[in-house]
């Protein structure tokens, strides 16, 4: 993890402070001195600071199990108790009075699955999972030691963490900021540090469109990556054309925290022909279909989930196999497509209905909605005053009896910490 090659390169920049890889290595070594040798659990309130990254790297070096926490979450204290962590790093290191417990020897990282409420589930990853995925990602993303990226994603999120890991492994520079995309500060840093690599989820790209990003010239920019959900075909094509015209690259990637981060990718040229595809598996990953479901076989597949302390003693339950719960197909060139989430299907009076399809159909008819369901009832949520129009449209187009569909106007979407729509929470709240 810490075999940095370019020791004199700048590794991290935070405000006016920048540190080289050599300095980072020393900080990590210093930090390690505070940690006992027995395998322990450390909770890290992961923010975009040098200190948090040092805590993360040192804990990895020590073969600890790291409980990655969203520093803005209200549940962190509860989680530290639930997992009876030995250390807490929240701006500073605190040793807790914890019991001796059994931790699986290869358990290195507990990443939150992006839920916002209830008791969060964590994905159990090993150091090998992370290293394997980092290597695979570097086999297709052209990250070099002269590159600079900026933290547009949180580091407790698998995608954000993979950006950090891959850049550190390449000797590149990471500019640390918590400034949101829609802030002057973010774009000032972007220009000042000549950012070459930008990474974002669909929300970022939707914002970039609104910010007229494509009309601006960012000479330093080399490539952009998009993951974390389905971006609309139109926006994908806009960015693909922008990349081709400006000699930049644009990568659309598919992944899950359950697979450390990345599973497949598609590059700029292929995107032009296939903007809806998630491309092919990255090197070191086998991707195939089983009853229409995408299955991953790879060394970056998680050990399993954790919902309580006892789970930390568990070994490798997945054994390299991940059922993604994404349904899809493969074309004649071997490129994959995702059509739906397995869990987004409901049976209404015996008919299998795809909730994503309904959402898409409504959007095509200018109704921006979120569709959830339970048993024999579909609920459509909208922010606008168009309840009766939506209901009419659905009853007419889906031949659904009006008693099986409800439409409700709400104030705002419930989103997860990674800005994705939180279907589960909205279902629980409104159904």
């Amino acid at each position, binding site marked *: 993890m810490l075999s940095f090659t370019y020791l004199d390169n700048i590794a991290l920049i935070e405000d006016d402070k920048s540190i080289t890889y050599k300095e980072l290595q020393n900080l990590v070594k210093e930090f390690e001195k505070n940690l006992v040798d027995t395998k322990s659990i450390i909770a890290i309130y992961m923010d975009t600071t040098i200190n948090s990254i040092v805590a993360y790297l040192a804990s990895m070096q020590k073969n600890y199990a790291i409980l990655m926490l969203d520093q803005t979450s209200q549940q962190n204290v509860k989680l530290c108790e639930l997992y009876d962590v030995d250390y807490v790093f929240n701006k500073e290191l605190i040793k807790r009075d914890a019991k001796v417990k059994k931790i699986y020897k290869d358990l290195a990282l507990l990443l939150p699955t992006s839920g916002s409420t209830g008791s969060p589930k964590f994905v159990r990853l090993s150091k090998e999972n992370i290293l394997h995925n980092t290597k695979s990602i570097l086999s297709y993303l052209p990250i070099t030691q002269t590159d600079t990226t900026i933290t547009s994603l949180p580091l407790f999120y698998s995608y954000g963490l993979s950006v950090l890991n891959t850049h550190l492994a390449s000797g590149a520079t990471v500019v640390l900021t918590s400034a*949101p995309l829609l802030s002057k500060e973010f774009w000032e840093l972007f220009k000042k540090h000549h950012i070459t690599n930008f990474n974002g989820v669909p929300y970022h790209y939707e914002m970039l469109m609104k*910010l*007229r990003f494509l009309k*601006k010239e960012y000479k330093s920019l080399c490539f952009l990556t998009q993951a974390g959900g389905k971006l609309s075909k139109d926006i994908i094509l806009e960015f693909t054309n922008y990349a081709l015209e400006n000699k930049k690259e644009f990568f659309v990637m598919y992944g899950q925290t359950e697979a450390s981060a990345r599973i497949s990718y598609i590059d700029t040229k292929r995107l032009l022909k296939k903007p809806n595809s998630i491309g092919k598996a990255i090197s070191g990953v086998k991707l195939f279909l089983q009853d229409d479901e995408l299955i991953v076989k790879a060394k970056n597949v998680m050990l399993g989930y954790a919902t309580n302390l006892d789970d930390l003693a568990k070994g490798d339950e997945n054994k390299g196999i991940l059922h993604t719960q994404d349904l899809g197909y493969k074309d004649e060139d071997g490129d994959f497509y995702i059509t739906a989430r397995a869990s987004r299907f409901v049976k209404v009076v015996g008919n299998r209905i795809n909730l994503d399809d309904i959402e898409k159909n409504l959007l095509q008819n200018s109704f921006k909605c979120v569709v959830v369901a339970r048993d024999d009832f579909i609920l459509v949520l909208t922010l606008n005053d168009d309840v009766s129009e939506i209901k009419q449209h659905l009853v007419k187009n889906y031949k659904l009896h009006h008693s099986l569909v409800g439409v409700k106007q709400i104030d705002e979407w419930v989103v997860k910490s990674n800005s994705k729509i939180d279907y589960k929470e909205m279902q629980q709240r409104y159904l």
Partner: protein
Amino acid sequence: MQTEKLKQVFIEALGIDKNTNIENLEYNTIDEWDSVAHMNLIGEIEDAFEIMLDTDDIIDMSSFTKAKEIVSKYLKG
């Protein structure tokens, strides 16, 4: 500069009370003016004044006063 017209756009786009002290309004200081509402507001301003704002100006529009300044720049242009 049509200040009253801009005020009206703010009231409608942000869904705020018309008795709000709009002159002193700042981005992210009220619930109604968050990042999502900001984008909506930009669209409404552009439609109302038939202008197309630049990236820097969209990000820069951090208060009503600033919005007034930016919009008038475009109207002159």
